[in-house]
């Protein structure tokens, strides 16, 4: 398909061509679309008269469109002119003078190119008189299998065709099923049946029209409908019996029910011959068919360090999709980017055709890189049974000296190649001395592993217990104070001992008295500071402390207060005795269980 466009301010012409590559005797359809804004087309476009292509007008139509843009209305008209182009002679034809006359003058469409190859034997349309296959029943639906050739060369294109042939009584059912895209036939393809071929199936279930045919020995009218084509390219020589397909028709026997009706066509016998060795060129890489090659470079005039794009276009019939790349000349005077590839390939019921365009971006090293030698391509033509080498014309470039001083460094940056492996990827041994260390994988069998991993769990349990205790005591301050009472009392006793060591008797008695009163306050939640002896006695009795201890407490507190307030100096022995008595008293009090 080709899209050519010419645009002016008020008129646009677009050309679409279905196939650009034809054989002699084939035809293609061209649609010329002209869009105008207000102007009218006076007459049909003029078509070129080329010796080799014949343009036949098919039909034309006109449509209009009303647009309202930025508050202004605009009416556009689209004229479409359809032509069939018939290939009469082989060759390359540039169609460049299709012009359209409008009110303001004429406009030319962009040129396009059509390549016509020599004609080959057409794919046989079925014989006008068919014989019903053996064993078919009265339903009168047959599957006709055929091949475009019975004997082909390795790599040569071959088309297997599978057509349905049905009695006229099924015509309306078939046509309605096709129109409504209903699955009137299910293809059962056998896996591996075409393993020695590259295959491209072309499904024609809903696309081709039925043709009337006659059956031998039957006066009724029959119709033939193409179902599927297999475009095949044999990979290896040999004799093959191909039966890749069976079809299950779903015919409507009565108003309600469709009945599956499976048809297995006879196998098709194909002989694949090897390609001849005689005359095989060195550059031949397996292309079979008919090809042309064209190369062009742009720009042809450039400076050192600038790029030139070399476009190589390979057109042809046959296995274009897998065609080998054309052989490039020596381009060592150029740096190259990785080439890109653009395919335009059509696979239809007549086979495969199309073009591949390879784009190479080249940077000439210097002024000596002023020529691109011919690009070659070799293929085997099965029609003439000969190898053919085609080549492009040499391309001359004009290279001007560069004004830039960094051409060389620029060239280095562009000089990149894809690194490819040329041998097996098998790695060398490990030479590390650690290879003799014994590694134990199953460390979970050791006790140390479990101890190490259980330790944090135990720590967590401990932390949780501690946290719970902290929260519990924070909610119950009396219990917390009660639990802390012995510790505080011991701390005060320690302070008293320090004062004793410093011979500070006053401080000793302060600490001893405070140790007793603080212990009582904390242990039994009793604010005993400021109480007289009788009050303290009553309070302690209420807390369930026995009288001997209460007497000792009151006596000692009175005695200590007396010493403190009298200011009399006490001898060391007396202080030591008092300290011991206080310590003894507190240890006895600590043993009393707190019942509150």
């Amino acid at each position, binding site marked *: 398909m080709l899209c050519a466009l010419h645009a002016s301010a008020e008129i646009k012409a677009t050309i679409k061509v279905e196939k650009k590559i034809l054989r002699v005797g084939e035809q293609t359809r061209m649609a010329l679309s002209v869009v105008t804004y207000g102007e009218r087309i006076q007459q049909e476009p003029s078509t070129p008269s080329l010796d080799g292509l014949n343009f036949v007008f098919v039909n034309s139509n006109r449509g209009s469109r009303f647009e309202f843009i930025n508050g202004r209305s605009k009416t556009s008209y689209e004229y479409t002119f359809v032509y069939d182009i018939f290939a009469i002679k082989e060759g390359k034809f540039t169609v460049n003078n299709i012009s359209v006359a409008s009110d303001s003058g004429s406009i030319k469409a962009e040129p396009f190119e059509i390549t016509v190859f020599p004609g080959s034997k057409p794919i046989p349309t079925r014989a006008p008189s068919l014989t019903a296959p053996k064993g078919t029943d009265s339903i009168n639906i047959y599957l006709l299998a055929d091949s475009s050739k019975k004997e082909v060369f390795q790599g040569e294109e071959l088309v297997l065709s599978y057509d349905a042939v049905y009695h006229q009584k099924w015509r309306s059912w078939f046509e309605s099923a096709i129109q409504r895209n209903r699955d009137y036939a299910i293809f059962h393809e056998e896996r591996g049946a075409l393993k020695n071929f590259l295959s491209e199936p072309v499904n024609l279930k809903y696309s081709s029209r039925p043709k009337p045919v006659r059956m031998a020995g039957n006066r009724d009218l029959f119709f033939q409908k193409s179902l599927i084509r297999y475009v095949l390219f044999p990979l290896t020589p040999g004799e093959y019996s191909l039966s890749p397909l069976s079809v299950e028709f779903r015919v409507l026997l009565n108003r309600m029910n469709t009945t599956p009706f499976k048809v297995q066509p006879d196998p098709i016998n194909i002989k694949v011959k090897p390609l001849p060795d005689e005359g095989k060129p060195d550059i031949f890489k397996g292309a079979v068919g008919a090809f042309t090659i064209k190369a062009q470079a742009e720009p042809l005039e450039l400076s050192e360090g600038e790029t030139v794009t070399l476009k190589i276009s390979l057109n042809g019939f046959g296995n274009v999709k897998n065609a080998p790349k054309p052989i490039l000349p020596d381009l060592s005077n150029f740096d190259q980017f990785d080439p890109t590839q653009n395919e335009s390939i059509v696979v239809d019921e007549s086979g495969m055709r199309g073009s591949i365009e390879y784009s190479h971006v080249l940077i000439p090293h210097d002024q000596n890189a002023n020529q691109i030698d011919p690009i070659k391509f070799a293929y085997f033509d099965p029609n003439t049974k000969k190898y053919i080498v085609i080549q492009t014309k040499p391309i001359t470039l004009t290279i001007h000296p560069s004004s830039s001083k960094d051409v060389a460094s620029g060239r280095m940056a562009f000089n990149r190649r894809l690194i490819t492996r040329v041998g*097996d*990827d*098998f*790695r*060398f*041994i*490990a*030479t*590390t*001395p*650690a*290879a*003799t*260390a*014994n*590694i*134990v*994988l*199953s*460390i*979970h069998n050791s006790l140390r*592993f479990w101890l*190490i*991993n259980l330790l*944090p*769990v135990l*720590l*967590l349990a401990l*932390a*949780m217990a501690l*946290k719970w205790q902290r929260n519990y005591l924070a909610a119950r301050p009396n219990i917390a104070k009660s639990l802390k009472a012995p510790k505080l009392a011991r701390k005060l006793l320690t302070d008293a001992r320090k004062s004793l060591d410093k011979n500070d008797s006053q401080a000793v008695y302060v600490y001893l008295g405070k140790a007793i009163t603080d212990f009582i306050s904390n242990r039994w939640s009793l604010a005993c500071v400021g109480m007289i002896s009788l009050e303290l006695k009553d309070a302690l009795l209420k807390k369930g402390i026995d009288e001997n201890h209460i007497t000792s407490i009151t006596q000692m507190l009175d005695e200590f207060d007396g010493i403190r307030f009298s200011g009399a100096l006490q001898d060391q022995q007396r202080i030591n005795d008092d300290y011991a008595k206080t310590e003894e008293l507190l240890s006895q009090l600590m043993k009393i269980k707190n019942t509150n």
Partner: protein
Amino acid sequence: MKSLLKISSIIAAFLIFSTGIALSAENPTTPVLAPGYSPELDRNGVLEQANEFYRNGDLPKALSGYQYLTALGIKNGYLFYNLGNAYFREGNLGSAILWYERALLYLPRFHDLNINYQYARTILADEEFKAPEYSGTLGFLIHINQKFNLRECLIITGVFLWLFLTILIIRMFLENQSFRSRLSIPCWVVGFAFIIFFSSSVFKVYQHESIRQAIVMAPAVEVKTGPGNDFSTSFSIHEGTKVKLLQDQGDWVRVLLPGNTTFTGWMLKSTVEAI
């Protein structure tokens, strides 16, 4: 009298048992080095010498050195890899695959090992069934599982356990609400990592302890429908193919092809070697 008999039988059983242990201790399979190795070489010396033989293309001597080291009880992925390479270059595909598989248990991320293992697998006679491919969370877990060996998995699990519980304990006792909330994300991340590695470790321990795999060492083996030559052949497999061992019975072992549960049968024990 009866008690005397009982005591004497216990003593006799003890003597027989201890004699057996003593005999087995006296006859260990002493590894022997091929001529060309100096007898004074220590382990590292033997390894260096074997590597040198490999470098010079003297594969039988290199193999002897590596085998000597493995016979000493050294279990090391690099040593197994070298042994696999030596077997492969000598053309013993079954043994090469076996030692590569053993090395993979220790060094699952060792790139050279994976390259050579894949290369060796490409020339196996049997195309092994493809293991199902998983994506999403399960695929990620399997990826993690395959990238670490059992030891690494267990150690990483332990480290994450310590980290997770430490952060948890610190967070528990932090009074400052801001600091506590800052520790939440690390706590979740480490906890998630711990769960992943813990589940991976559990699976690896299960694989290590419960799943027995082996490599076919014979050039071609017919897998029978029962434990005996009289049974019909179910399918045949070739050297280097990995099988899962299911059940032992006499000289026969029941195997299953990994990746396809329908291919199971019995083959002689002598034709496979456990990984």
